[in-house]
């Protein structure tokens, strides 16, 4: 008898959830694949959902989606695990979406799923970070690794007071598997050769965890006395490292610069712990990505064209199979208030 009553309750509850699930629930209406209005569906996959850097990109993407009357699904693993991201790509491929834009945390893990999706006729592109070229059509690149590496080193040297400053520089990175960061580190080492008085100390991982970056910064200061500058090359590591230096009372003596959003670093730029923040316009990156994906899906743009008309961004150059956003920004005390992402 008890089992029957329980059975009835369970069935009713489930029908309730399934049946009247709100059509506009969640961050974007998923609905069936070819929804009635024939609108194309584009999926935007960040490395890790919940990081402001990617959230601001998504805002740009939403803007483009409205302009192009495209249905945008923005979702990604909350713990940043590439396996979960790959599972999402497989799910979307099964749903028969039109285009998937992938920012791979570990390109090797996502490549198989991306290739499988392409075989199912889904247009797959990468943005923010690249994957093997046979796994995607084009790569929407904010800037080349070399541009980023050079900009980081030059900005740090400027902050430290010019070329002739002697001492050690350290790097706090995201995780060892992060493909982007590893490319940038190659070019940072390359660029450092131009400054003989500077010596590169250790490269410490912070696994997208602010507390670890905070501790790493403090440990680096204690462990090597003539440390002059730190490059924090991930949007989670930079605020952590800055706070670490500030609380160690080394603001001003040990310079730190890196990649993070203006919103996250505004306080540190204002109180002088950080002189300059290197990044690019994340909103534009999101906007450009959706433009490329939509035009690819509608056949208005082929990977081989030289340029692409990207709505409000105007024409963007296509070099090889990279669509370049192009402009690296450096936020300082003077201009940081003009940016709100």
């Amino acid at each position, binding site marked *: 008898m*008890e089992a029957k009553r329980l*059975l009835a309750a369970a069935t009713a509850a489930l029908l309730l959830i399934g049946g009247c699930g709100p059509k506009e629930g969640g961050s974007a209406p998923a609905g069936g694949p070819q929804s009635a209005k024939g609108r194309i569906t584009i999926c935007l996959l960040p490395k890790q*959902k919940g990081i402001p850097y990617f959230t601001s990109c998504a805002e740009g993407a939403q803007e483009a989606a409205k302009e192009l009357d495209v249905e945008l699904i923005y*979702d990604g693993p909350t713990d940043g695990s590439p396996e979960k991201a790959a599972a999402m790509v*497989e799910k979307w*491929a099964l749903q028969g979406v039109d285009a998937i834009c992938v920012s791979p945390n570990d390109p090797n*893990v996502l490549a*198989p799923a991306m290739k*499988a999706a392409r075989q199912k006729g889904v247009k797959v592109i990468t943005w923010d970070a690249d994957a093997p070229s046979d796994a995607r059509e084009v790569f929407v690149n904010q800037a080349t690794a070399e541009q980023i590496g050079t900009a980081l080193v030059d900005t740090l040297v400027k902050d430290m007071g010019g070329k002739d400053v002697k001492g050690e520089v350290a790097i706090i990175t995201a995780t060892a598997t992060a493909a982007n960061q590893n490319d940038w580190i190659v070019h940072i080492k390359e660029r450092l050769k131009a400054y003989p008085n500077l010596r590169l100390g250790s490269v410490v991982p912070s696994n997208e965890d602010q507390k670890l970056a905070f501790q790493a910064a403090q440990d680096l200061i204690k462990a090597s006395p003539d440390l002059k500058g730190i490059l924090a090359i991930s949007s989670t590591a930079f605020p952590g490292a800055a706070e670490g230096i500030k609380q160690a009372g080394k603001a001003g003596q040990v310079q730190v610069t890196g990649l993070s959003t203006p919103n996250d670093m505004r306080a540190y730029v204002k109180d002088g712990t950080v002189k300059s923040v290197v990044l690019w316009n994340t909103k534009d990156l999101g906007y450009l990505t959706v433009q490329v994906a939509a035009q690819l899906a509608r056949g208005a743009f082929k990977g081989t064209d030289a340029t692409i008309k990207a709505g409000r961004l105007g024409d963007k150059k296509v070099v090889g199979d990279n669509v370049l956003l192009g402009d690296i920004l450096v936020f300082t005390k003077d201009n940081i208030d003009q940016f709100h992402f």
Partner: protein
Amino acid sequence: MRRLLATHEACLAALLAALVLAAWQADPAFVSGRVQAGLLPQIGETALLAVPMTLIVITGGIDLSVGSAMALASVLFGLGFRSGWPVEACVAVALAAGLLCGALNGWFVTRFRVHPLIVTLGTMSAFRGLAEGISAARPVSGFPETFLGIGQGWAAIGLFVALCAAGSAVLARHALGRQIYGIGLGEAAARASGWNVDRLKASLYAFSGLTAGVAGVLFTARRNTAKADVGAGLELEVVTAVVLGGTSIFGGRGTLIGTALGLAVLHEVRQFVGWRWSNDVLNLVVVGALLIGAVTLNGVISRRPAGSVEGG
């Protein structure tokens, strides 16, 4: 005792049916064979690890180190491959590592009479720490196409079905199955009946380790990566499926069919939420609530006396 078991499985099957019905009503495409077939491999490793976990939980124990043993096996496979060993040798090394991890758990639980929760909590950190240490948290990938093939296919699911069938037969009709239930219900009576309780427990933990090794290799094939954070948090997912399936955490009660149903409900709920709302966060809340709800109902049905974390 048989009647009691039937009700939980029946409820679970009904819950599953209701879930599929609700999903079909909301979004028919989800329920199509093509989609379900495409999504199934994602639960492969969890299903594989759920078989030994069920047997261990029935004896009143638990194995939280399966995720970490999987990672160690995967990392060893990767390192072997990178230093040029043939794939078969790498697979052998990975399976041996898994078996060793399981044997170590078994040795600690039986020889030192230590509570399995604490032993496997310790080995959980130790195995994953070892994997992180020897691989310096660097992944290895770029495995040969043939090897990658076995992952995309249904090796894990096929192996699960085989293990599940064999395990159910043993639990239902074999002396070992009878002993597994007996140890869970009354270890003192089991010892007084001359059963080699320690050897059976130790071999269950070794079997769990070996399965973790297999899961590690299959995952590496499926995702083309061998790294130290493989299977992170997987042990909690496996325990969720096993407990959803009606196996009591105090031991003595549970079946592999129940676990299979528990896996199905867990998988369908998660995939449906992902499909319908495409919101990874919602899943966290839904699966957690499902676990607590199922066990509370389970407790209400069976009116089990209060018990602490004490198992075995």
